[in-house]
């Protein structure tokens, strides 16, 4: 009797554990699928100045946008094409071009606020590209 009780408790415990794993697993981390959500690596623009970062994950998986929300009307598929255009500036964003199509203060935070959310600077660029590590490896001062 006692033994039977024990095994029931153990069984229940195991079930709970398994259930916990089964339920908590996907909630914690949904696998990031690049074909659905876009490249996992950040897009980094370095023109006209260093540097602006864009994460597909935040916008697709996080904000629920689909690929054709931005491609190809706002941004071409090939990464880095936008920065080759002369109008890839904050002024254009304020006029609703590029990021400014959504970042207008209604759909997403306005382009003229929270600058450092996207502008990671030279320091952020070096961190993202690993230029920091290379530099400190070389430095013999």
């Amino acid at each position, binding site marked *: 009797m006692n033994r039977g009780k024990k095994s029931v408790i153990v069984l229940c415990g195991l079930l709970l554990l398994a259930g916990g794993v089964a339920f908590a697993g996907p909630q914690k981390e949904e696998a990031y699928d690049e074909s659905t959500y876009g490249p996992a690596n950040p897009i980094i623009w370095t023109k*006209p*100045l*260093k540097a602006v970062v864009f994460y597909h994950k935040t916008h697709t998986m996080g904000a629920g946008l689909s690929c054709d929300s931005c491609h190809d009307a706002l941004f071409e598929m090939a990464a880095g094409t936008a920065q080759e255009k002369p109008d890839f500036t904050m002024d254009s964003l304020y006029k609703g071009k590029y990021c400014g199509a959504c970042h207008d203060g209604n759909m997403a935070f306005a382009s003229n606020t*929270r*600058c*450092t*959310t996207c*502008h*990671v*600077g*030279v*320091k*952020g660029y070096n961190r993202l590209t690993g230029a920091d590590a290379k530099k400190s490896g070389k430095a013999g*001062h």
Partner: protein
Amino acid sequence: MKISELEKLNNEGAEHLPSEERRRFLQFGLAVTGVFLGGSVLSLTSARTAQGQVGPMGPVPPAGKFPYKPHYTMVMRQNRCIDCERCMEACVKTNQVPSYGYRTKILEQVRPLGQGESERVFMPVLCNQCNRPPCVRVCPTTATYKDKTNGIVMMDYKRCIGCKTCMAACPYNARYFKEENRAVDKCNFCIDTRLAKGETKTACAAACPAGVRIFGDLTDPGSEAYRLIHRPEKIVWVLRPETGAMPNVFYMND
């Protein structure tokens, strides 16, 4: 002296602070010594005078009480800074700053906003051209001095013996030793490289694409710098006001 090294030192705590009497005695002693030395030695400024700088205008001196004319200043609209470092590039080019040195830098902080969110803050720093510059007080050869007209903290490279005491005394870590000159080098608001040639802005201010650095003259109420820091609705701060150095670089968010 690097800030990173200073940060590693142990905090001595407050439990071994001298008693009230001892403090008074020391204060008396320092006052007497101060008289003999003309009050010109580092750290003999009493705490009372140092605190006296924070008036009703915050760290901004009351209008009409600017000791120099022109009284050069730089106002930093800090939240606009995105660390593109064009200012640093322009400074290096204009003032022949070597690769290991700097006259201005961008510091980076991460400020927690709660709920797992945080924001990055970039803080441009340079020589604050203090009204009471600790570096000038400690220089044994008067190689570094306040310009009598415009108050810029200047370097006379020929007089500098490279003792680096000024580097240790500077509350803003704004000085470096320039091997080429065998002398300490620092920001001088481009007085020789630009202002003397008729330019109205420093190289860094001219290069800033985001309007962070506003260079100007505090004695001119029409200047943008004056206007920015005299708006009652805005909070203006300086870095390390507790040192009593009376810096002339002001920070604000626009």
